């Protein structure tokens, strides 16, 4: 029952986000700021993680390849597939639920407990639109981040395997180009778009409807992280079922 009520309120929130829009010029500025905070500000940490994860995927594949009948190029192939299909879209989104998600929940939650949201409302501004719409738009640019992450991840795999003398450059590249299916990339980006929307809205929901004081802001951030992760993981399963089978 409580779960259904949350879903209902979440849906109402989404409707409210698109009503009574804020003045366009103000909205534009808010969107630019959110792109900077949420997307550009996340490049550093996600690039770092993906560089090393790509390297580890390549190493693991190489170390488990002891059958001489399997070509070394599999290392390139495996790195490409795991990064594009799951690692970049899904794993990085879970990281983002921690980084961007808790930031969104705590910043909106603080505005709630210090009555800044009431202040917006009393001025005749739609706080849902003012606060959440720019985040949704900003995270619509999330696929660009993930595209960069894919390159960096594969680059990390390349560095580890080629410079670690596990495979020659030629063989790695052969593997990278082996049976390339464009639909897999499309699948990855469809997932990314959905995850971006979840990353913008679920943490916003937890911040916007929270009650209490500073202590509760911390708790709300934790709850928000858990639910954002759970939603991403479930959406990942459903989308994979829907798009790849």
């Amino acid at each position, binding site marked *: 029952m409580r779960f259904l009520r949350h879903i209902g309120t979440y849906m109402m929130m989404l409707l409210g986000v698109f*009503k*009574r829009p*804020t*003045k366009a010029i*103000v909205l534009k500025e808010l969107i630019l700021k959110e792109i900077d905070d949420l997307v550009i500000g996340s490049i550093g940490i996600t690039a770092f993680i993906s560089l090393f994860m790509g390297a580890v995927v390549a190493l693991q594949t190489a170390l488990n390849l002891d059958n001489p009948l399997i070509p070394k190029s599999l290392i390139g192939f495996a790195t490409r597939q795991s990064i594009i299909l799951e690692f970049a879209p899904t794993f990085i989104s879970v990281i983002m639920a921690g980084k961007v998600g808790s930031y969104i929940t705590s*910043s909106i939650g*603080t*505005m709630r407990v*210090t*009555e*800044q949201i*009431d*202040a917006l*409302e*009393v*001025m*005749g*501004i*739609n706080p849902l639109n003012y606060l959440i719409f720019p985040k949704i738009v900003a995270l619509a640019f999330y696929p660009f981040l993930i595209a960069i992450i894919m390159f960096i991840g594969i680059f990390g795999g390349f560095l580890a395997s080629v410079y670690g003398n596990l495979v020659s450059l030629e063989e790695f590249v052969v593997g990278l180009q082996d049976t390339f299916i464009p639909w897999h990339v499309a699948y990855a980006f469809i997932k990314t778009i959905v995850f971006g929307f979840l990353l913008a809205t679920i943490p916003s929901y937890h911040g916007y409807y929270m009650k209490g004081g500073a202590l509760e802001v911390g708790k709300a951030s934790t709850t928000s992280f858990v639910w954002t992760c759970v939603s991403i993981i479930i959406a990942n399963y459903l989308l994979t079922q829907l798009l790849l089978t």
Partner: protein
Amino acid sequence: MIEVKGLKKGFNGEEILKGIDATFLKGKTNMIIGASGSGKSVFLKNMLGLFEPDAGEIIYDGERLGEMEIERKSDLRKEMGMLFQHSALFDSMTVEENVMFPLRMFTKMKKNERQERANEILERVNLPGLNKKMPSEISGGQQKRVALARAVVNYPRYLFCDEPNSGLDPKTATIIDNLIQEITHERDITTVIISHDMNSVMEIGETIVFLKDGLIAWEGTNKEIFKTDNKAVTDFVYSSELFKKVRIAQNEGL
């Protein structure tokens, strides 16, 4: 003019407001007084539509708040200024951006015009030179004054102040009170002020309602409040040591 009729509001089965009737006049500083926790803020939030009343009506110059479409309500709110008890400044904006915010949102003023108006108002609240500071970098009393500047910068038709001078030193408190009264008279604003500070009540209580146990226990003006025999009011007024002494002195004919 704002009329409140039969307003009731409770939380989780506990009734906080039990049927309030009150009228707040245009061009006057109207005060709501009462002990801490008596429901003053809840009363105000119902008037602003931040809480949905359980029963009763709020009428803005003849228009019922409860029957307004959301768009109409937004438009009405653009004519309201509100000073929150804990200031509620936007902490991601500088002092100056906070003050200019309503102008930016609702007027066609150019940047330099907005700036000029903001400076003018900041000077009136006695806060020049803090324009570029963030709210977290100034004191609570200064935040309150910035919040008042933000509330009045667009010359609202209705002004609401929740404890405008709690946490201020007596001198600043008087400056704030006088400014609220001046602007109210100057622009013919319907102003509603919550307070439990007897100094303010004396200074600017042009009309007063006294809230107790969820009802209006007394109403009158600052001239009348010191003459009433209403026990609840005298208990409230003379709970302060200073006023107790003043009264004893009066009784002794000094």
